[in-house]
């Protein structure tokens, strides 16, 4: 099995550990990982802020970078949702506005080949026990795009409960948004921080040592709040927990 990694721009520049963890994890499960170097960003920040025209070249770039790869895996629910939900729509709108049908075809063609990491593990590889070891108490925040956009359901939790040594504790109000919301975090900083503070308070009250998520953008916001408050709670991407083993623990 071969799969192409769409690492996403945020992970590439700020959270390379997440990308590295995905590579280690997939290779451990017998998957050959490709990294098409032409990839950059899915265009979500532009599109979600209202700059659809600015997003179009990135839709094209992403679709072209992954042409010919039957499986594209990404450790970000919101980027997966962007490609699956919005790429076809952006393509259709571009075609309707007379900028050629080619973008529409590219976008439509890519959408069904893109998998969020937990979907790829559970649905394509058919595993829930990935052989990980992580002896800590963990609580999980299912980001909105994973929860409602992609309908990831209990996939992440099934993967986490199969990790040896890991104790999963429920996060009260888990389905509530953390307040990141892309540019919302800077356009409405007060509301954003208020939402995030409620989320981190709920996470800290569980007694968990690690707040886990599957989207580093949400985690960057929550982690920023936790560190400003000097909280001992740390954030970790799900991929890093799943990549950790007894022989190769998380550094």
């Amino acid at each position: 099995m071969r799969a192409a990694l769409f690492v996403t721009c945020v992970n590439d520049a700020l959270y390379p550990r997440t990308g590295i963890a995905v590579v280690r994890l997939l290779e451990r499960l017998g998957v050959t990982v490709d990294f098409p170097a032409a990839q950059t960003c899915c265009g979500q920040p532009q599109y979600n802020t209202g700059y659809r025209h600015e997003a179009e070249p990135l839709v094209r770039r992403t679709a072209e970078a992954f042409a010919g790869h039957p499986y594209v895996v990404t450790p970000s629910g919101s980027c997966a949702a962007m490609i699956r939900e919005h790429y076809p729509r952006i393509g259709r709108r571009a075609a309707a506005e007379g900028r050629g049908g080619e973008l529409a075809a590219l976008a439509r063609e890519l959408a069904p080949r893109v998998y969020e990491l937990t979907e790829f593990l559970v649905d394509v590889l058919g595993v829930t026990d990935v052989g990980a070891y992580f002896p800590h108490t963990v609580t999980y925040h299912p980001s909105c795009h994973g929860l409602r956009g992609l309908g990831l359901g209990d996939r992440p939790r099934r993967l986490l409960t199969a990790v040896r040594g890991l104790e999963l504790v429920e996060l009260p109000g888990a389905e509530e948004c953390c307040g990141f919301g892309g540019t919302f975090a800077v356009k409405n900083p007060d509301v954003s921080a208020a939402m995030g503070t409620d989320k981190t308070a709920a996470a800290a009250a569980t007694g968990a040592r690690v707040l886990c998520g599957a989207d580093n953008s949400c985690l960057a916001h929550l982690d920023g709040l936790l560190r400003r408050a000097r909280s001992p709670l740390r954030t970790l991407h799900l991929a890093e927990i799943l990549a950790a083993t007894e022989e190769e623990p998380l550094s």
Partner: protein
Amino acid sequence: MSGTYLGMPAFPEAAREAVRDGVLRANLRHATHTIRGKRALAVAELADWDRLRAAGRAVKDHTLRHLDRYLLQLEAAVTAAGGTVHWAADAEEANRIVTELVLATGERELVKVKSMATQEIGLNEALQAAGITAYETDLAELIVQLGHDRPSHILVPAIHRNRGEIRDIFRTEMGRWGRPAPEPLGDDPRELAEAARLHLREKFLRAEVAVSGANFMVAETGTMVVLESEGNGRMCLTLPETLISVVGVEKVVPTFRDLEIFLQTLPRSSTAERMNPYTTMWTGTTDGDGPSAFHLVLLDNGRTDTLADPVGRQALRCIRCSACLNVCPVYERAGGHAYGSVYPGPIGAILSPQLRGTADAIDASLPYASTLCGACYEVCPVAIDIPEVLLHLRERVAQGGPVTRDGIRVRIRPAHGHTAERAAMRAARLLLGHPGALRAGERLLARARRLRPRRLPGPGRAWTDSRELPAVPAESFRDWWAREREACR
């Protein structure tokens, strides 16, 4: 208080105050979480909820597609039943029609059924200017009116108030409007409700004119429908001699049978009740029973312009249940007033910029008053894809584009104040359009990683005011991959 609230500060500034108001946040959190939980239970009781939701959506979409036909059918049915239909293109026209109708009766005061449409057009203020006093009879509206306040929720306009605050308002203000509150007055809900009942009874018994809205209008029969919980609306709808109903054109449904859907979905979505306690229906006039004169004012006020937009028009399906407000994490922190309109929360964020346009600062900021978390779409009983409309309106604000204003298709320019943002988006696209440039940028960032400031200047300050920046890694993923993998091939 004003019906339109234009000239309000943009959402982020208006929300800032609310976020800092601990009492307000506690009131809102308590109220929205309680109703949210109850709604979920009430909805879960119906095995066919998804089908009801789809049916409600389909009926509304069908009606909107043939709105002209159904409105004419409605007009004919209302007229045949002894009512009079008036068409109002905008708020000003609607206010003028109602004012003239009231003045013609010789009355100078009237009672009101809670209605979003009359708030939208600022009817009470317009009547006041003509020397007519309108008394709100819905308990929550009464609290808002007595408190010289603005409503902050569609269904529970005084949701931002707690019992102690309400007691104080009743004590100081009731006497100025009519029967004073009994002394002593505590903050027990029953005591407060009794004070309101006594105060309002005097108004009901005296009133000759009533003004209402309607939740639905049935085209085939000309029937108006109001759903409520208290029964005060029914008093207004049955006791006075003249009844004037101001209703948005989108409230029409084709047949009586269509009500079957909404009489199930609306109460469960809004108050988490299986059925609302009072459903009042009236069709024209009947001799010796109820009002002897009935006027229906059909309000457009931006609705047909909204209808012309293929993406945005779904907002007109709204049945004003307020479920989207109660699940919205932004509404919960920002409060209803920050939305600068009688329609707060997620529906307000998509409806106001369509009804009013995006020229004003508050309207241009509303499409951004959401994290796009999708909770509103999930609960909406007529399946309005609010995030989709938000994105569509953001595009209108950031890029400009075609809109319909007063029936004419025009291209609007991007809203003011987005120049810096647009430049940043362009710069990002240049960087992201070239992986080599991105790689160089990442290396530059990595080299400067020790300089990571605690506070950023400019727009970045909004992040660092309350959050630390992420640590910049020594090496990007791209570079790691090249070093680890490509080197050995």
